[in-house]
């Protein structure tokens, strides 16, 4: 695995681009990986192109949106599941005992 800071600019661009578009397939973790991968490099090497900044930044934004949405959903689900009763049984992985 080549370290990100040794990569050429084109390589970084292509990878971050692919990761960015790949993330749209319900893969927020890929976006986050993209950000983790290239954010330090962007800080170390200021002269990189705007496109990379764009991809990395929006990957992070996308990932955070996903995380927030998921968190909201989980909270809503956990707090309201007793209220909703048996109507949402199909959502459970395993129906909790008790």
């Amino acid at each position, binding site marked *: *695995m*080549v*370290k*990100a800071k*040794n990569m050429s600019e084109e390589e970084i661009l292509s*990878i971050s681009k692919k*990761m960015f578009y*790949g993330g749209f*397939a*319900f*893969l*927020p*973790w*890929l976006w986050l*990986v993209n950000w*983790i*991968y290239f954010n330090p490099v962007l800080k170390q090497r200021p002269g990189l192109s705007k496109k990379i900044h764009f991809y990395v930044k929006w990957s992070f934004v996308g990932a955070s949106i996903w995380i927030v949405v*998921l968190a909201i*959903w*989980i909270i809503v*689900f*956990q707090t309201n*599941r007793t209220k909703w009763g048996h109507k*949402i049984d*199909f*959502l*459970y*992985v*395993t129906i*909790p*005992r*008790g």
Partner: protein
Amino acid sequence: MSQNTSGLNTKEYKELRQNSQEELDNMEDNKIYIDNNKDNHTTHRNYRPIKNQDSNSEVTSNNNNNNNNNNNDNNNNNDNNNNNSRNDIASSSTSVPEDPKLKKELDEYIEKQKEILSSPVKEFTKEEYGEYLNEYERLLKLHTEKKITPEQKEELNEHYQTLAKFQYQHISPEQKKEYLEKQRRHYKERKIREAENKKKEMYDNLRYYSKEISSIIRPVILCICLSILWVKLTNKVDTQQIRSQDLNLISSNNNDNTTNNQENDSESFDIWKLLNSFANAGIIIGNIIIATFVILCLFKYNHTKILYGLFIFTVFMLIGIFGYNLLYVLIDTYNIPMDWFTLTIFMLNLSVVGVIVIFWKGPPRIQQGYLVLMSSLMAFSLTGFADYTTWFLLALLACWDLIAVLCPFGPLKMLVEHSDSNNQMIPQALIYSTMVWMMAQDVRIKIKDNNENNENNENMLKNGLTHNPSTLFDECEASSSCSTKELIDSKQKKLNEKNNENYNIKINDDEDSDISNSSDQINEISSEKGDNLERKSLTNSRRSSRRSHRNDHDNNNNRETQDSNSDDEDEEGLKLGLGDFVFYSVLIARAAMHDWLTTFSCAIAVLTGLTLTIFY
């Protein structure tokens, strides 16, 4: 020109040579001192003979002389002047009682020198002498510019020796005595410096090794801890309420061929149980053997695409299915009200990104994390079998490992040979994946560039070769070590070419270390302290790392596996096959099914064993 004139440089030298005869005569007197003072000679700084540091006993006379003028320390080279003055101080206070051993050595050395110097040498006429000197100077210049070839180096040494002899035989007895005295002092200083260096080197080695080992052991410990965690998490509930239902679930889900290996704990020991588990283990091993041959065939007939597809599929399934199983068991046993939506998203992300990171690109940390996770999942799934199955499986795995690697028709050996002979790359993923059932430690180079610690003038570049009793690379060890040497050599060459001002490189090969399985190559880079050292060395290191990169790609055709990996892990020198992870983790996870005491004692035993295998 008095005899005390020290530190003549080449320029003055040249002037001298071109001048009239008396000056030549004068110079003849001085010449020895000049050469003798090559220690302080700035131009000589970069002359580093590629040979063993402690060349005291069995060196030829040639080398002796050679050493004498260029055994300048790699780390002291930027304070030559200080060194010089220190030498003077040291020489004025030689009355300090010497270590008897050192004294004896010194005397011996001087005797030897005397012998060498007074051995007959052909007489020179003036013109011949001038010519000879000219030649010598040319070589010296070449050497200073680092364009010298080994033959020329030899020649240089010879020239130097002849000149020294010639001059020695043409000076007065007092001068001779003084000269010898000076020689002795230099030799002594050199010895002391050598000793210091050795000590320093040893400490560096130690530090390096401990770092290496900790970098290996950390992931192993992590993997083991994860496996223990999985087992404990699922096991706890197992003892509380469900009574081995989880284990049933895992086994029957994971492996179709182990349907009848679940026995109740309450059932008494019987031979059928043993046979049964043996059969189960045999079936699994059979699968592994078939898989090995399939991989071999695919590799041999160049279906790398299919191979990659297979591996990607395998990894995906491993993370996806085993991870899902584990999660499902956890959700089930801990009564977590989880919804399908979250679970699906979570598993999709985990497995798809895992495949991407492992097979394509990704941050090294995350990649390592995935590998550890994968191994721990694998280990966990293996512990799901009945008691004896696991043990039989482990034993059979070890046997198969030995057969596959050491037999002439062992598939893995064939595979490695094939890749060597055809200049074909073993895909990295294959190495990882094959190592799932292989106890093997791979050889990797650690190349650390200068920017890590700028304060230190020298850094160790080293390649630790470790060896495991039942490793894959027993027979490739030689080749790998030679390839690493190639690599380092070529790296050195490039460095020399490009920034010969900033880097001094020394390769210290002690190949003939008696423990043949751990041949270290020490590459010391010492950088000159400049005004803008910080920035310069940073850029240099970046450049050089890139260069090594390119270099690797050049070399790729010969030694793909070693080379392509060598620059990958800047952080990690040695690489442990995933097989080790799984193997150790299975052992410990198995133990973790009982109680904590067993778990910890097993863990300690395994880690001790691991450390020992790394050391020896």
